[in-house]
């Protein structure tokens, strides 16, 4: 029975199953094709926007600020320091109706100008106005907390007023609540310079930050090592609910890389002292500007590099822009007689003279069509080479320099580092000017032998004199301890400093013995530079100065004193330069005493005992 029924039904059911299957598949295919189309739309056409929308839903992204590296002195004392700071921002759309009340609130707490704040709170068509920048985080947070509590008080009162049906009070309280909630804070790191003007010309400062909050370095190391100091900001994004991070929610984190600390070779206390002495010297001599350099003889570390006039890093606006640079590096001048020690060191090294070589020094030396004179009138003098240095005779130096072979003096000066940048990490350094071989005539050589017709910067000159102090070996000067990379990509610092022998040990020793005679109370020209108890070797310089206006010698002078102590075992080389002193003083009377005080302080600070050996008694005259 069942079989016959099955047979009867089979043709019909078989057909209908196919139809059902087909129509089912078609339906599924239609639905799937919708899915497919949607998939293409989401993934193919604009995947990023959708992904961003999905990510933004309930999640926040926070920048993890990288801390800017500090600038430290050699002992870790801060010259520039970073601190958390915030900027206070207002939304004028909310604050305008209550601007007066808010301005009073802000001006009393944030030390901002009342009227300017009032104006900013009322700016039309704006939703973002700075009220105060670089406010220490703690102060800003306190102010914002108070603003928030006032806003919520007002909101509570508004609710009460609504209950009472007092429309006027309701509107007023809502306005107050809105106004106080129209204040926001944003990150705005503060750079502080705890030492004020100490090493200001080297450190530099950060100007008002860029609108995106990144630092805007304006001078000095801050600008030169900006990327080294800055570091890289990180970022984290996570999902939040009710102001709290949702545990196990999606979160990504890119850690910030903090900037590295820049350790300088500067000794903060010595730098401070040197700056004060240089300023005092410039003031007392009526000079235009002054430079003081203290260098560690053995390592080439620059312990102090003082410029005057200088400025307070925390108040750069009060100084003129011209005072921001480091004159010791960017300004060139003719070194004058200080250079004579390089000439004679070269002469002795070349085996042409000794410090006892006898010279007949006439009162005036006629060379080609011109004549050379000394600063003091004299007849025919019988001076030894030591006497020439001790009395700073131009004629004697020129006569001695005649013994050089062609090009020899230039070679020596080049090896002493003149005419080349020191590259110690200060921006805008000048190379100085050592005339090219093609320009080198016998007249040029005469003038260069006593320090005119060539120009140097103060650090170059210090390093050159230091080579004599350091037994004839020149050490590259350094301002950065260890090493650091400038924004130009140059590696600088003590790690990359090199040494090279310039003159022999013996030549350096003989030169030192002559330089000691410069400070002799009877024979020398600079007894004022002596340091009680110590043997000191030094040399004065009073050079004619090229005026900026005319490009010629304008009757003004550069006075200087370079020296080292203790003379027979030097620890420090100190160089003091004063531009255009108006009191009529020279290298010995203006720069000498400043040298003495700085050197005395350095020796005391580093507890250098006197060597106790007898001072040089080289004869200055012969019979």
């Amino acid at each position, binding site marked *: 029975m069942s079989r016959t029924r099955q047979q009867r039904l089979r043709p019909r059911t078989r057909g209908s199953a196919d139809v059902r299957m087909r129509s089912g598949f078609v339906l599924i295919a239609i639905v799937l094709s919708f899915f497919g189309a949607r998939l293409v739309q989401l993934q193919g056409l604009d995947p990023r926007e959708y992904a961003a929308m999905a990510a933004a839903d309930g999640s926040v992204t926070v920048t993890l600020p990288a801390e800017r590296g500090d600038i430290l002195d050699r002992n870790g004392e*801060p010259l520039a*320091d970073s*601190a958390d700071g915030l900027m206070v921002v207002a939304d004028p759309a909310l604050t305008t109706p209550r601007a007066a009340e808010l301005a009073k609130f802000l001006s009393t707490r944030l030390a901002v100008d009342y009227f300017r704040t009032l104006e900013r709170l009322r700016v039309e068509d704006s939703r973002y106005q700075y009220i105060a920048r670089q406010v*220490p*985080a*703690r102060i800003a*947070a306190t102010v914002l907390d108070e603003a928030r509590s006032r806003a919520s008080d007002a909101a509570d009162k508004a609710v009460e007023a609504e209950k009472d049906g007092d429309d006027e009070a309701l509107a007023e309280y809502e306005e107050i609540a809105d106004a106080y909630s129209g204040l926001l804070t944003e990150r705005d790191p503060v750079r502080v310079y*705890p*030492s004020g003007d*100490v090493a200001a010309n080297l450190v530099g400062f950060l100007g008002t930050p860029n609108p995106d909050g990144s630092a805007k370095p304006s001078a000095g190391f801050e600008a030169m090592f900006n990327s080294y100091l800055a570091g890289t900001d990180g970022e984290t994004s996570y999902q939040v609910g009710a102001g*709290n*991070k*949702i*545990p*196990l929610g999606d979160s990504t984190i890119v850690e910030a890389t903090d900037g590295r600390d820049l350790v300088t070779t500067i000794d*903060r*206390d010595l730098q*401070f002292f040197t700056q*004060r*002495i240089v*300023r*005092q010297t410039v003031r007392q001599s009526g000079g235009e500007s002054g430079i003081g350099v203290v260098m560690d003889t053995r390592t080439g570390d620059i312990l102090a590099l003082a410029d005057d006039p200088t400025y*307070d890093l925390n*108040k750069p606006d*009060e*100084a003129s822009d011209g*005072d921001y640079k480091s004159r010791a590096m960017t300004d060139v001048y003719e070194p004058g*007689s200080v250079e004579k020690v390089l000439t004679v060191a070269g002469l002795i090294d070349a085996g042409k003279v000794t410090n006892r070589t006898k010279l007949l020094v006439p009162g005036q030396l006629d*060379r080609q069509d011109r*004549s*050379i*004179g*000394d*600063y*003091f009138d004299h007849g025919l003098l019988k001076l030894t080479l030591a006497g020439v240095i001790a*009395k*700073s005779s*131009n004629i004697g130096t020129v006569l001695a320099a005649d013994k050089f072979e062609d090009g020899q003096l230039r070679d020596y000066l080049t090896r002493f580092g003149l005419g080349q940048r020191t590259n110690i990490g200060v921006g805008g350094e000048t190379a100085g000017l050592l005339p090219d071989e093609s320009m080198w005539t016998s007249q040029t050589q005469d*003038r260069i032998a*006593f*320090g*005119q017709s060539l120009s140097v910067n103060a650090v170059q000159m210090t390093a050159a004199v230091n080579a004599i102090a350091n037994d004839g070996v020149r050490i590259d000067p350094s301002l950065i301890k260890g090493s650091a990379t400038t924004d130009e990509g140059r590696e600088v610092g003590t790690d990359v400093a090199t040494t090279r022998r310039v003159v022999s040990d013996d030549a350096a020793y003989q030169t030192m013995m002559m330089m000691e005679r410069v400070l002799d109370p009877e024979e020398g020209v600079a007894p004022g530079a002596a340091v*009680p*108890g110590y043997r000191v070797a030094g040399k*004065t*310089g009073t050079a*004619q100065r090229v005026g900026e*206006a*005319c490009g*010629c*010698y*304008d*009757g003004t*002078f550069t006075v200087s004193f370079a020296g080292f102590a203790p003379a027979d075992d030097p620890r420090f080389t100190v160089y003091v330069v004063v531009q255009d002193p108006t009191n*009529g*003083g*020279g290298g010995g009377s203006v720069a000498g005493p400043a040298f003495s005080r700085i050197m*005395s302080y350095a020796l*005391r600070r580093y507890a250098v*005992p006197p060597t106790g050996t007898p001072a040089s008694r080289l004869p200055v005259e012969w019979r």
Partner: protein
Amino acid sequence: MSSPAPATVRSRLSTQGRGLAGAAVERARLTVVPRRRTRAPKVPFVTLVSLLLLAGVVGLLLFNTSMQQASFTTTALQERATNLAAREQALEMELEELRNPQRLAAEAQRRFGMEPAGAPLFLSLESGEVTGERGEPAERLDLVPNQPTRPGVLDPAPIIETVIGDVPADQVTGQTGNRGDTARGSGSGRGDTGRTGPQQQQQSQGEQQDQQQQRSER
């Protein structure tokens, strides 16, 4: 299973009269033992599973709640840490301000009347010998900062009127003189370095070089 069963019955029917041997053989044949149905009580198992599930759900809930709680605490503590770090920084800045060498020097000089030391004496611990020269205290440091530069608007350059008279220029511009250690007289009669004035600036190159050579310095 259904096919062996009727076969057994059939064989049983057909061998009914075949004697005892057949019966014995018949008896020795193995048959499948019907499966025994165990009736374990379901209630404990269901209870166990439900309890496990419940414990899981409740545990998860508690875990989640405690995590949420921890998250609140984290936020609160982080805020506190930020505040404390800001406070520490503020105090450190204050400290640095107090340690500023300029302030220390001013305090030492004004408040305590201290003076910069002169040259020290050295006592050698080995020989007991005292070396060095005792210096007088040095001059006090001048700590008055420079006056801030006034902006150009407030500090205009002086207006200088130059009046040209009929006095010879030589007599008007003298020497700066009194630069004891540098002044070299104008005995040579050539361009005098002490002179200042516009006409000096336009001197010939040769004269400038004269000046360089003749002008001595130390």
